[in-house]
């Protein structure tokens, strides 16, 4: 069988489990957007142009709080700054692709497509560009269309989602599922611990800047343990 096809299907299967929380979460966005006063066009435009749940909910909250436009924009954008790190991390794997393909990868770069792909790529050091793009596309196809479709359903059907579903936990559980398989060496665990401790300690910083500081320090901590620490993790081949 064509290997690109195999990796595409693996990516699609890799993305499917996220739908368990992504579907209720996008329904909730549709419902809340309409409650906040956005019309159907605005609700769909936000899901199609931004495709970033946490940032979209932040924007709704700030509109509801009647925050100034510029404050709403900066705050909602800051939530997405972590994606610059995803972009750099993926550039190491997909940087050889033509610009138009990288432009499409950028549009669909969300936590789930990034997390599923980076674990897959790192587990398979010899994987070629075509196969990496195939896996990524599969994950995108599993995750992204559902975001638009269920935003629409939520905005149109618009009934309250029962509080018993505890959907506030949809975001944490998704991120936990993404990060757990990454805890594969002392360096990775150290980076994760530094990230947790600093993110909590710096939670007072405005615009979510604490997370960025925490993430920067955690990356350095991981790299330091890898360089000087005991029991070096296996070296990965350069892509």
């Amino acid at each position, binding site marked *: 069988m064509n290997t690109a096809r195999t990796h595409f299907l693996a990516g699609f299967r890799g993305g499917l*489990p996220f739908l368990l929380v992504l579907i209720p979460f996008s329904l909730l966005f549709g419902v809340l957007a309409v409650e906040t006063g956005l019309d159907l066009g605005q609700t769909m435009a936000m899901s199609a*142009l931004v495709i970033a749940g946490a940032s979209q909910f932040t924007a709704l909250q700030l509109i509801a709080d009647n925050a100034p436009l510029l404050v709403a924009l900066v705050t909602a954008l800051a939530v997405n700054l972590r994606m610059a790190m995803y972009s750099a991390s993926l550039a190491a794997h997909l940087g050889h692709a033509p*610009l138009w393909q990288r432009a499409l990868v950028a549009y669909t770069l969300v936590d789930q497509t990034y997390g599923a792909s980076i674990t897959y790529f790192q587990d398979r050091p010899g994987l070629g560009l075509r196969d990496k793009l195939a896996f990524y596309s599969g994950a995108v196809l599993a995750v992204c269309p559902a975001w638009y479709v269920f935003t629409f359903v939520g905005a149109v059907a618009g009934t309250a989602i029962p509080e018993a579903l*505890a959907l506030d936990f949809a975001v*944490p559980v998704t991120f936990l*599922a993404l990060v757990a398989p990454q805890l594969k060496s002392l360096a990775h665990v150290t980076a994760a611990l530094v990230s947790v401790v600093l993110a*909590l300690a710096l939670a007072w910083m405005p615009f979510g800047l604490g997370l960025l500081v925490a993430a920067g320090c955690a990356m350095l901590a991981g790299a330091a343990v890898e360089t000087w620490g005991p029991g070096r993790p296996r070296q990965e081949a350069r892509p």
Partner: protein
Amino acid sequence: MSGGWGELQVWALIAALGLGTYLIRLSFLGLIGDRELPPFVMRCLRYVPVAVLPGLVAPLAVWPAATGGQPDPARLLATGAALAIGAATRSVLGAIVGGMGVLYLGLWLL
């Protein structure tokens, strides 16, 4: 529309947020392309997932908005369960189902 937000302002926010977010995503993918990065940078980039995601989760797990920011035993247990199942099985489905399962069980029991 609530408060001072008019039709036009909402559209301006959507457009600017969409464009800004896209530029953030494109940043390194668009600019670096196939240029080689220094080994030290590559080493740091290997830790992006473990540097970003735990820091995102921590405040949401410890100070959940659903309980007014008070630590909640059910959510802490569910965090531990999702992490343990995910690390042991490397299964996204297992971590999500296990985490939400423990959360519902905890909310029902506690």
